[in-house]
C-alpha cells in the first residue's frame, strides 16, 4: 500500500484514525485501507485493539448488539437438520426402486429354493433360477426411468442430470444389488454357475437400455422380460422333460458354447446406447 503506510502494512496512526471514524481521511485512503484490511489479519487485530482503546462508544454498541443476539444465535446453532437417509443413496437409487429391488431379491430367493428342492434338469435342462436369472435385473431397470411408476418423473425429466448418466447410475445400482444376490445364491445352492447367466443378464440389460432410447426404458425392459418368458421359459416349462429337445430351451440358450452370441448381443446393445446417448435426455 502507498500513502501513509509503513512498508506492506497500514500504519498505526492510519488505523487509529480509521477506528475513530476520522472524517478528515481522504476517500481513496479509506478505500485502500479497507481493501488491505480485508486481506490482512495482523492489521485487523491492530484495528480491533484500536477500536477498544480509541473508540469505546463503538465497542460498547457492538457489545450491546452482540448481547442482544446471543440467545438467538446459540439456539440456532445447535439444530442439525434431521436426515432419514444419507445423501449419496438418493444419487443412485430413487425411493421407488427400493421395494422393487426387495421384490427381485425375493424372487431370486424363491427360484433358488425351487432349485434346491427340484431336480436341476426339470425345466428344459436349466434350473428355475438360471432360467429367470438373465431377465431378473430388468425388473429394476424398468423402474429406473419410468413415467408411470416414478412420481417425480416430470420434475426429474426437466433437470440437467436427466439423461444417460442418471439412467446408467440407476441401472448400475440395480445390477449391484441383483447380481451379487444371484452370485451368492447360486454358489450356496451349487445349481448354477455364474458363467451361465451373468453374460446373458448383462446382454439383456444393455439391450433394454438400447431399445429404451426408442420406445422408452420401461416398455423395453418389460417387453424383453415378457418375450423371454413367453418364447423361452414357458414352452420349456409346459413341455416338461421333452423340453431338452426344443430349439429355444433355456438350458440350450444358456450353455457355455452360446456365450459368444450373448457377448455379441451385449456389445451391440452397448454400442447402440453409446450411439444414441443424446436421445436419453429427452425421452
Amino acid at each position, binding site marked *: 500500500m502507498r500513502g501513509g503506510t509503513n512498508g506492506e502494512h497500514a500504519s498505526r496512526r492510519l488505523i487509529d484514525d480509521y477506528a475513530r471514524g476520522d472524517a478528515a481521511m481522504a476517500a481513496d485512503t479509506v478505500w485502500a485501507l479497507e481493501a488491505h484490511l480485508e486481506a490482512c489479519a495482523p492489521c485487523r487485530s491492530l484495528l480491533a485493539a484500536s477500536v477498544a482503546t480509541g473508540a469505546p462508544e463503538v465497542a460498547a454498541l457492538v457489545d450491546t448488539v452482540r448481547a442482544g443476539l446471543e440467545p438467538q444465535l446459540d439456539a440456532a446453532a445447535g439444530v442439525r*437438520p*434431521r436426515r*432419514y437417509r444419507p445423501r449419496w443413496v*438418493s444419487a443412485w437409487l430413487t425411493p421407488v426402486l427400493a421395494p422393487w429391488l426387495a421384490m427381485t431379491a425375493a424372487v431370486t430367493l424363491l427360484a433358488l429354493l425351487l432349485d434346491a428342492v427340484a431336480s436341476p434338469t426339470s425345466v428344459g435342462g436349466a434350473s428355475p433360477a438360471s432360467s429367470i436369472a438373465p431377465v431378473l435385473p430388468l425388473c429394476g431397470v424398468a423402474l429406473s426411468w419410468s413415467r408411470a411408476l416414478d412420481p417425480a418423473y416430470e*420434475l426429474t*425429466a426437466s433437470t440437467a442430470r436427466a439423461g444417460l448418466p442418471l439412467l446408467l447410475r440407476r441401472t448400475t445400482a440395480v445390477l449391484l444389488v441383483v447380481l451379487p444376490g444371484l452370485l451368492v445364491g447360486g454358489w450356496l445352492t451349487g445349481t448354477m454357475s455364474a458363467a451361465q447367466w451373468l453374460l446373458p443378464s448383462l446382454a439383456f440389460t444393455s439391450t433394454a437400455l438400447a431399445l429404451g432410447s426408442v420406445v422408452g426404458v420401461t416398455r423395453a425392459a418389460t417387453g424383453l422380460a415378457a418375450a423371454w418368458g413367453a418364447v423361452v421359459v414357458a414352452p420349456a416349462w409346459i413341455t416338461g422333460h421333452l423340453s431338452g429337445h426344443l430349439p429355444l430351451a433355456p438350458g440350450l440358450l444358456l450353455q457355455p458354447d452360446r456365450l459368444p452370441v450373448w457377448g455379441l448381443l451385449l456389445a451391440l446393445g452397448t454400442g447402440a446406447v453409446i450411439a444414441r446417448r443424446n436421445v436419453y435426455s429427452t425421452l
Partner: protein
Amino acid sequence: MTSVTSVADTAPKTYAWEIRAEDLRVRVGRKKMAVDGLDLSLGIGTHGLLGPNGAGKTTLIRALATVLRPAGGELELLGTAVGGLGDHRALRRRIGYLPQEFGYYKRFTVREFVEYMAWLKEVPKAAVPAAVQRAVERVGLADRADHRMKTLSGGMVRRAGIAQAIVNDPAVLLLDEPTAGLDPAQRLRFRELLQELGRDTCVVVSTHLVEDVAAACSDVVLFADGRLVFQGTPDDLAAAGGPEHPGDSPLERGYSALLRNSGRPGGTW
C-alpha cells in the same frame, strides 16, 4: 449471504429474449397439436399465461421446460435453440420448473426433497446447503424443513414445489398453476415473491385466476387453441373489454372480450 456466481451469471447476454418462439408447434399424443403456430417473445419480468381450459398452457410450459420436444417451428431459450437432439444440460441448469401436478417422494423431508432437486439440477456441491436453506426460507417453509413431505398440507407441498423450482436461481422460471391450493394469505405472499423474482428472471406463470395476473404480473399472454391471442400489460387487457362483455372486473371483461374476438368456438363453458 453470498451465492456462488458461475461464469454463466456474469457473462454478457447474447440474446434479446429469454424465451423466443416462432411458429412453434407442440404435439400432445399422436394427433392433437396443442400448441399450433405460436409466435412469442418473453424477456425479464413476470408473465402471466392466461387461457381457457384446454388452451395448451400446460403443453407450452412443458415444451419450455424441455420436457416435450417441439414438433415444428423454432424455440429458443436463453439464446439456445431447443428442439434437436442436442445436449440440453447447460440450459437445463438455468431453468426452474414447477409442473401442475408434481409428484414427489413422500418419505423425503422438505429439505431432502429440495436438496435432491438441487443435486439433479447440478447446483455446485458446496453451494447446495445454503441454496436449499434460502429457497425454503423464501417460500416460508423454514419451520417445516425437516418434516416429511407426506405430513404437509396441500398448500405447503405446493410451496415446497416452488422452493425446488427456485433452488438453482434459474434464469427462466416456469410455474404451472402455482397458486392452486394456496390460501388467500399465502397467495398474497406468493405474489410478492413473484414480483421479487420477476426483477431479474423471466418468470412464466400459467394461471386461470385473472386476479393473480393483475396483482403480480408485468405482462399478460393470452392463449387460446394453441395460438397467441394477446400480449400486453394488465392495463391493456383491461382496456380491451367494455361494459357489454361478461365479467366482474375490468380484467375479466377484457379477457372475455379478447377470447370472443378471437372467434373461439365452444360451448357455454
